[in-house]
């Protein structure tokens, strides 16, 4: 610590830290454009000039390191004159079209110009004009307004991990633009809107909608992945009009993914369910809530309760639901004496599921020196987790992926590409090599195994690292050896002193686990239910063609003549209308209060930013009223917070799991790994039109190797289960990796 003097005031600071960081901490205003606390320093705009005693010229506060005894003036004549001069220069080419600029009212240039600008310009020459360019459906550009601060450029190379924007030309012809005709494709691109200090980059879906001061900003939590990014929903007259990022250094720092930023668009989709509906003699009728609820209760009573047949009732929920919703639903089912409940609808085989703890915190991920990513397209599936790894890599960490397909990480990754049935054996090889290196006993199941050279390399990389993490992703979920893979990772981590991170189930899956939204040994899991003789189902936000692994058996089970189905949904869906008997319209994200549990096991509660459209109601209220009508005790909640405090008082149930490792299981000749596009993982996203129009939203391909294509007699451009075939040598043999943006019935592959 050294002592310096700023504007006559004594201040403590670390030697070497930049002056602007100190003034920011002390609440002393220094104007700036190019400086951004999370980006490298470029010191190019010169707006932050201050007077440092002893220095011959004014110094930029953003790139002047602190030294003991420094005396700084941010407000004296010299500082003010410099700031005013820079402002005049910056405005020379700026169009000053604030009245038609979306940034108006939240523009750093506007604010600083009011403070430091002059009211007349001495510049009478012509201004520079930059032709408009289309860089994609998410970001609107007006590059004539650009002040060349290069924040967006640095954001690309330092945070998004790919440099997409750049400065071409020179002098007066300098232009900030992307090189590729397809525009900006990063999954984090929307952050450029936040970092751009002027109206050069603004939100395209929000264009010409409103002024920032007309909206209320409501703190909220993103629910599309395991991060739970902090953000603000900006609302106007009961509608979410825009989403911007919030700050939380332990979670999303100051960034959010495009998925979190633009999903709100789905809220206003015409498919929203506005009124309760009941099906009478095959015809749908919109009715009052009381009628619909009575109908639901009567149906449940007739079909199960009167005959004391609660074990013929099944409850299924989407993992996007809030913790409170899931808690109430399980409580209601269990009060009815029903132990058939599940949220793991997309898992093929629930007898052997993945059990792997996550024991490293998000913020710590950027400190690892080695990461092994098993079966994940991390960048698109968990963008903010990937961002932490990207930072680790930039700091020198080594990254490896063990996968059936090469994915496009935004940092260098060593790829080990193996068929689905070799993932377990490769990891077994890693384990054996680690055990040998540590002089540990080799267990029976590894005795005959010879580690492949790839396995030895992966093991050595682990052994050479000090802080390693092994990440298990979603692609392994339905691998025949899924549980062995998870258990092998546990063993490897144990013996190599590594951490593990389980991203195989996303959204609020941890919330579902917290409230035990899975059956105990007396109940049925989802796949058991689909094959049993059921009489009724209660469904929470379930969309069959996306959510079930076994779509066909799900549709068959739900559509049976004598099965009574009560479905809570926020969007209309044709298949739901076919099998349901009552559809209760529920509030979507931003319309309900609740709690999301993120990968750090952090409970993050949010309030409703707006109320749901039409007659739709928050699902926790619907479930509560339903329970009341069913005359169940203990549902006198007045708020979701009350529900949550009850959850907090429940002890967490430790589920027993199978820790066995079996390398001899029969594996299919060709395994299909079916992933929905990252912008289709829940109902709100599927209805968010700009995201769907983006490059990532348009991803639709069934990748396979030439050998696999030969076995299946397919050519490039053919269709495999409705998806265009892409033959590539970056996909392992014996597997088809589908990344689809289509609603399809084919997701369930036996």
């Amino acid at each position, binding site marked *: 610590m050294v002592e310096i003097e700023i504007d006559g005031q004594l201040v403590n600071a670390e030697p070497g830290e930049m002056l602007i960081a100190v003034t920011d901490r002390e609440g002393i205003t220094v104007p700036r454009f190019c400086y951004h606390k999370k980006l490298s320093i470029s010191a190019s705009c010169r707006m932050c000039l201050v007077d440092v005693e002893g220095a011959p010229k004014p110094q930029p506060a953003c790139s002047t390191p602190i030294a003991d005894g420094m005396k700084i003036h941010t407000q004296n004549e010299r500082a003010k004159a410099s700031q005013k001069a820079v402002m005049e220069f910056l405005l020379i080419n700026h169009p000053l079209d604030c009245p038609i600029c979306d940034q108006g009212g939240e523009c750093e240039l506007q604010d600083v110009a009011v403070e430091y600008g002059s009211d007349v310009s001495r510049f009478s020459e012509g201004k520079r004009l930059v032709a408009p360019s289309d860089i994609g459906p998410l970001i609107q550009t007006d590059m004539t307004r650009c002040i060349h601060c290069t924040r967006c450029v640095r954001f690309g*190379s330092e945070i998004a991990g790919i440099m997409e924007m750049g400065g071409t030309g*020179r002098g007066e012809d300098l232009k900030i633009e992307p*090189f590729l005709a397809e525009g900006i494709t990063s999954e984090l691109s929307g952050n450029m809107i936040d970092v751009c200090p002027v109206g050069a980059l603004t939100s395209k879906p929000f264009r010409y909608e409103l002024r920032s001061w007309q909206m209320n900003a409501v703190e909220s939590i993103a629910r599309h992945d395991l991060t739970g990014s902090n953000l603000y929903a900006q609302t106007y007259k009961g509608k979410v009009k825009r989403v911007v990022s919030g700050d939380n250094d332990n979670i999303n720092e100051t960034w959010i993914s495009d998925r979190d930023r633009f999903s709100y668009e789905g809220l206003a989709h015409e498919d929203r369910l506005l009124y309760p509906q009941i099906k009478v003699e095959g015809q749908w009728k919109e009715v009052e809530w009381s009628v619909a609820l009575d109908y639901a209760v009567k149906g449940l009573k007739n079909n199960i309760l009167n005959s004391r047949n609660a074990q013929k009732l099944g409850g299924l929920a989407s993992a996007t639901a809030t913790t409170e919703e899931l808690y109430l639903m399980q409580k209601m089912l269990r009060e009815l004496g029903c132990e058939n409940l599940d949220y793991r609808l997309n898992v093929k085989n629930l007898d052997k599921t993945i059990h792997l703890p996550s024991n490293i915190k998000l913020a710590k991920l950027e400190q690892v020196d080695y990461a092994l990513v098993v079966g994940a397209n991390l960048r698109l599936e968990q963008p903010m987790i990937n961002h932490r790894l990207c930072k680790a890599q930039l700091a020198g960490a080594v990254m490896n992926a063990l996968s059936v397909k090469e994915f496009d990480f935004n940092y260098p990754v060593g790829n080990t590409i193996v068929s689905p049935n070799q993932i377990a054996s490769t990891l077994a090889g890693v384990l054996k090599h680690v055990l040998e290196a540590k002089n540990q006993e080799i267990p029976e199941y590894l005795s005959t195994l010879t580690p492949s050279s790839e396995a030895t390399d992966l093991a050595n990389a682990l052994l050479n690292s000090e802080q390693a993490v092994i990440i298990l992703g979603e692609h392994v979920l339905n691998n025949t050896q899924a549980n062995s893979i998870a258990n092998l990772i546990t063993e490897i981590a144990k013996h190599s002193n590594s951490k593990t991170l389980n991203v195989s189930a996303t959204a609020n899956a941890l919330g579902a686990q917290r409230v035990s939204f899975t059956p105990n040994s007396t109940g049925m899991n989802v796949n058991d239910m689909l094959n049993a003789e059921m009489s009724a189902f209660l469904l929470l936000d379930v969309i069959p063609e996306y959510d079930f692994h076994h779509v066909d058996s799900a549709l068959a089970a739900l559509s049976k003549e004598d099965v009574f189905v009560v479905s809570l949904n926020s969007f209309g869906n044709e298949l739901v209308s076919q099998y349901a008997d009552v559809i209760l319209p529920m509030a979507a994200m931003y319309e309900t209060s609740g709690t999301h549990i993120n990968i750090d096991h952090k409970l993050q509660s949010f309030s409703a930013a707006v109320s749901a459209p039409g007659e739709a109601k928050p699902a926790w209220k619907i479930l509560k009223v339903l329970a009341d009508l069913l005359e169940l005790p203990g549902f006198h909640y007045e708020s979701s917070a009350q529900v949550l405090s009850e959850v907090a008082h429940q002890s967490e149930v430790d589920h027993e799991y199978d820790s066995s490792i079996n390398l001899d299981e029969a594996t299919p000749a060709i395994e299909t790994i079916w992933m929905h596009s990252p912008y289709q993982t829940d109902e709100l996203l599927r209805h968010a039109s700009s995201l769907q129009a983006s490059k990532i939203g348009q991803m639709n391909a069934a990748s396979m190797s030439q050998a696999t294509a030969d076995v299946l007699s397919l050519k490039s451009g053919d269709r495999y289960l409705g998806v265009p075939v892409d033959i590539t040598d970056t996909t392992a043999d014996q597997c088809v990796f589908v990344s689809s943006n289509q609603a399809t019935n084919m997701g369930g592959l036996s």
Partner: protein
Amino acid sequence: MISNKAKKQIDAWVAKYPEGRQSSAVMEALKIVQAENNNQLTHDNIQAVADYLDMPGIAAAEVATFYENYNHQPMGKHVIRFCHNISCMLNGADDLIAHLETKLGVKTGEVSKDGLVSVKKVECLGACVGAPMFQIGDQYYENLTIEKIDEIVDGLK
């Protein structure tokens, strides 16, 4: 996209820089690729250079558009690189450029009808003492006048 001969030349430049710093060779690589491409760099050429040097396309484009040495349109056999920076400007470069444009019937950046000459405005070439000046190939021509320009240009074949 890049010939093997050009790749060899680029590799020689890459070898001069520390390992992992291959992108430092981008200026030379662009020059080499431009030379084998009718003295012009297309979008695809720039991308090819970027791919070859394992750097983002936009980063190569920043270099390719910053320096006047790189051409982004078709060029004539001879490129007259006319300095219009401060010393030359003060000594009448703008009028001389206008004369040249009328004489050749082209605007700066275009190619004369016979494909022989194009004119390009460039920044200071470090020959201010002989301003106004231009460069053709490796040759500097200084203290230019209308007569001198006519003589030089008429002599181009």
